[in-house]
């Protein structure tokens, strides 16, 4: 490798909120660390598989608006998740496709047209140090990722050399997956998310559970990587909304005294004292991660065994993509 090669991706414009995220920090929740990681994990995994990376490697998660950046060297990259109207040197480029950039090329993403979060992966991955076993950025505590923070203009992200020859990577294509695009293109009134009731559904009145399962909730602008704050019909508790603080799994639907649900997301705290009426199914959580403020959500209860059957089906789908 010649020493003159600039193995970086230089950020010209960082977009609204762009962070490095992998599959998350495992094993540290008991010490109070959020799992973090990609909000839409299947999209991160597809981005990585397209460019020949391990599926859980760190990529850039771009929120609402994407980055503009310059490749310092020849590089294969991919974009998945939200449609951010990306262009390479001014030419529109497709998502879910491995693409070749040359040194000096400019990638420019715009605002998300479909979805909320886009992923940019590069062949070989970003050369970031793992902190507590993960390259994910924990924004709340300045942990991991690129300098523990969101990207800024002028940042130069170091790139690793891909292990697979570049010639074998370009032109890989995946179908645009799951219901992501269909949901918006079909102009349905909103998206339906499958949930498993509990662990504390019994804290709510029958009318409260009925409201939760039968009415539309709107995503509010206060939503972020910690939680999606929703607004709709008040969910009534039997006697108070507080429980003795216990563990919070990503996807938990907490209901504080306002009676308005908050779905806990990747950066959520590990423990909490609000009753949890339900937990969003693993296969549905990435869909919620793609919801924008103003989008409408409704919930449909399924049994935990059904949710696990869906999780296994999705995992099998992903395994079929790993055979490249």
């Amino acid at each position: 490798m010649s020493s003159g090669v600039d193995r970086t991706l230089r950020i010209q414009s960082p977009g609204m909120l762009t962070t490095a995220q992998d599959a998350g920090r495992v094993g540290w929740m008991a010490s109070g660390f959020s799992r973090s990681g990609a909000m839409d994990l299947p999209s991160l995994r597809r981005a990585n598989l397209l460019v020949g990376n391990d599926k859980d490697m760190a990529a850039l998660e771009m929120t609402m608006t994407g980055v503009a950046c310059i490749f310092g060297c020849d590089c294969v990259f991919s974009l998945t998740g939200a449609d951010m109207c990306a262009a390479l040197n001014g030419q529109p480029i497709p998502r879910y496709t491995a693409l070749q950039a040359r040194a000096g090329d400019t990638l420019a993403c715009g605002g998300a047209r479909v979805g909320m979060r886009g992923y940019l992966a590069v062949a070989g991955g970003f050369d970031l140090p793992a902190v507590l076993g993960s390259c994910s950025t924990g924004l709340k505590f300045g942990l991991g990722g690129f300098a523990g923070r969101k990207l800024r203009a002028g940042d130069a992200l170091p790139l690793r050399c891909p292990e697979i020859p570049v010639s074998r990577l370009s032109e890989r294509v995946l179908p645009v997956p799951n219901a992501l695009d269909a949901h918006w293109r079909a102009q349905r009134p909103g998206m339906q998310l499958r949930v498993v009731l509990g662990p504390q559904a019994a804290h709510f009145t029958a009318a409260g559970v009925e409201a939760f399962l039968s009415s539309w909730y709107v995503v509010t602008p206060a939503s972020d990587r910690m939680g999606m704050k929703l607004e709709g019909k008040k969910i009534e508790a039997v006697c108070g909304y507080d429980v003795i603080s216990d563990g919070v799994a990503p996807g938990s639907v907490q209901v504080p005294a306002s009676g308005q649900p908050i779905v806990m997301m990747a950066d959520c705290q590990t423990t909490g004292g609000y009753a949890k009426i339900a937990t969003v199914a693993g296969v549905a959580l990435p869909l919620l991660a793609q919801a924008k403020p103003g989008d409408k959500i409704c919930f449909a209860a399924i049994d935990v065994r059904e949710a696990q059957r869906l999780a296994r089906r999705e995992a099998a789908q992903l395994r079929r993509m790993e055979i490249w």
Partner: protein
Amino acid sequence: MEYPAFLPAGDCALSVEFGDAIHPEINARIRALREALERKPIRGVREYVPTFRSLLVLYEPCVLGFDRLVKKLQARMAGLRGVAEGKRRVYVIPVCYNGEDLDFVAAHARITREEVVRLHCAPDYLIYMLGFLPGFAYLGGLDAKLHTPRLQNPRTKIPAGAVGIGGEQTGIYPLDSPGGWRLIGRTPVRPYDASRAQPILYAAGDFIRFAPIAMVEYADLERRQAAGETIWEVREA
């Protein structure tokens, strides 16, 4: 509800509830189960979050389903005595009692500052769980005389190492953060230090004891810590 209860928390987690109260015996059962699972892990389980009265188990539904995990957990629990078998670890944490709310806490309890310090240093506090911030320990055992209402307007920045009282609880702020607790002192010990081999000092089930130190000792301990020395003590029993 009958305890222990196995409650699904979605398809990737389940909560084993041992009761509906904050009690050392309930907490000890959680610790016993956690220790048993750490000695002999169940394949497909990613991690645990022990809390006051429950153990959240995060697992991979593609490796094992809810029903099988419940059966495995039940089998493990059948062989457990109610108490943890591991050693009881007490972390002795040096504290300089010079917090800006020490006078308020003393006045609220109608005792002297010295008496506040004596009462605060007397018990071994059980770490019920960690949460809220990395390394933040929820402690049980604060003397009822020291129970003090929180500030009406939380401070925007409390420094790492601050020791405070909030309602019936006491604890150490592991990071600079906003907070509404009454500050009674400060420790040079960092419950969380990403650069340390053991980034988080203690775990749920351990105990904390506070030991009073003078200002000059605080400065000295801070210096020694910067030089890589261990400035807390661990007593095992």
